[in-house]
């Protein structure tokens, strides 16, 4: 059995950030990622990030990914790509289906001292008549096609959902040369930031609030879509149907944390809809109810990459502290600074709900400890 000090599961922004922060202090870190390249969703985020200019705001996600990979290499973080974690045990044993250089597969069991779960989130689906037709896809899938694979999913797009993902991917589809015929939003108001929606509005994209999708039409693929108004109980209003000529329907209906690994090693969870569903509880060190197993990024509640990066730093610092690579005092100072930044990122009308929900995770964790 291989022994490692820390195994980080998932090489997206939060996982890489945790790995770098721990490795920087001298901790031996292995990152396991099921993809062919680490970086998570950052490589498809070609837009400039919001946040504090002192901490990578204004830089495009794709460039942050390149920086993180360079830093990980610099501090000696080991990365296993194309490798899937298939088992995780409370005793901090990890079973990994590793892909070797010759493309053969090997099952490896690693005994780690600490585990960081950074598995991210997956897109929610919306079901409607015709939703299984080719051409109906997640907004994230469309974003992967245009920004990673350079393939246009279609020429005339209907976007379902006006949260930041729906708005940003609409903009990027325009940049890729598609036409976004409309953005449909079931709520009476637009979900995402005003600046994101203003960008696609001045590019001529109409937004239908209080509308939903009823049907995707077509034989071998999407040829059209039927949308209609909804009442204040979210029910379709007959007679308000509109038929749009589109060849692609992209769905941006939120994300759900990928908590399976946290569940199989019995981390206690709580249902927090504002953060995407069931969320594993954790303390200020991002440590789960299982001591030595940490959680960072979207798996602890769906937010943005800038908070994911900070959460990774928190866990990385806490791990280095627990393994005695840094003093208590040094760790406390670093973690306080990170918490200040995280709290600032969660302020304002868009962040408030997340801030409250994230606090409920900390409270839930304390309650479990007390009982």
């Amino acid at each position: 059995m291989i022994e490692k000090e820390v195994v980080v599961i998932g090489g997206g922004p939060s996982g890489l950030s945790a790995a770098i922060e721990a490795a920087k202090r001298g901790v031996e870190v292995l990152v396991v990622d099921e993809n062919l390249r680490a970086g998570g969703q950052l490589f498809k985020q070609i837009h400039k990030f919001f946040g504090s200019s002192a901490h990578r705001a204004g830089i495009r996600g794709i460039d942050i990914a390149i920086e993180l990979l360079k830093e990980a290499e610099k501090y000696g973080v080991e990365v296993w790509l194309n490798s899937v974690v298939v088992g995780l045990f409370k005793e901090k044993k990890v079973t990994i289906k590793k892909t070797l250089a010759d493309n053969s597969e090997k099952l490896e069991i690693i005994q780690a001292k600490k585990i960081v779960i950074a598995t991210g989130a997956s897109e929610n689906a919306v079901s409607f008549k015709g939703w299984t037709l080719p051409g109906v896809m997640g907004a994230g899938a469309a974003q992967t096609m245009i920004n990673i694979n350079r393939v246009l999913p279609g020429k005339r797009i209907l976007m379902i959902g006006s949260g930041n993902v729906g708005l940003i991917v609409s903009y990027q589809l325009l940049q890729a040369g598609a036409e976004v015929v409309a953005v449909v939003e079931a709520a009476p108001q637009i979900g995402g930031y005003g600046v994101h929606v203003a960008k696609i509005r001045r590019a001529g994209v109409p937004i239908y609030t209080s509308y939903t999708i009823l049907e995707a039409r077509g034989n071998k693929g999407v040829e059209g879509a039927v949308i209609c108004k909804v009442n204040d109980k979210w029910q379709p209003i007959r007679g308000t149907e509109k038929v749009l000529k589109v060849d692609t329907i992209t769905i941006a209906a939120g994300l759900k944390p990928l908590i399976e690994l946290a569940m199989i090693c019995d981390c206690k969870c709580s249902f927090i809809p504002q953060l995407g569903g069931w969320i594993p509880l954790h303390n200020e060190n991002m440590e789960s109810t299982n001591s030595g197993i940490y959680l960072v990024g979207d798996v602890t509640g769906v937010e943005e990459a800038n908070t994911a990066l900070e959460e990774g730093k928190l866990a990385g610092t806490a791990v280095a502290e627990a393994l005695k690579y840094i003093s208590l005092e040094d760790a406390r100072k670093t973690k306080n600074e990170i918490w200040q930044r995280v709290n600032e990122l969660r302020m304002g009308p868009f962040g408030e709900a997340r801030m409250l929900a994230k606090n409920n995770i900390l409270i839930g964790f304390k309650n479990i400890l007390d009982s």
Partner: protein
Amino acid sequence: MALRKTGYLTKEELINSNRYPSKERLNKGPVAIIECTEEIPCNPCEVACKFKAIKIGKPITNTPILDENLCIGCGLCIAKCPGLAIFVIDKTYSNKEGLVSFPHEYLPLPITGSTVEAVNREGIVICSGKVVKVLNKKSFDRTPVVTIAIPKDKLNEVRGIKRLKNKH
């Protein structure tokens, strides 16, 4: 605000929230207009301004406030804004025309001297414009800034151009 329903700000909303330069200032020459009215955690514009004309402070969810007397309308902030929400307008360009500068992250880029269709915040073509300048400096990090000349009475409305089609 109508923004959350319609997806764009009106000039009245900008004036009412104290975000539109005064008439006196507009008559003096180029000045930035920051069309960012929501408290989101973001502050690159504040750092981008060499003249300290943009104030956000702490917390970073404060909305940016422009000091119109410190702003010289240089336009450095346009490409730095991750929300692409900053514009510069110049009422003093000529007798009949003024200039509007805006971020334009679409290819192909317009060519200096060409005539383009100018759009308002709703994406509706409201007049034609002449491309005066296309800046795409390395420091802009792939956010080109386009300046077009348009009739003066359209300066408060025009915020971009119709995307140009690729010639295949």
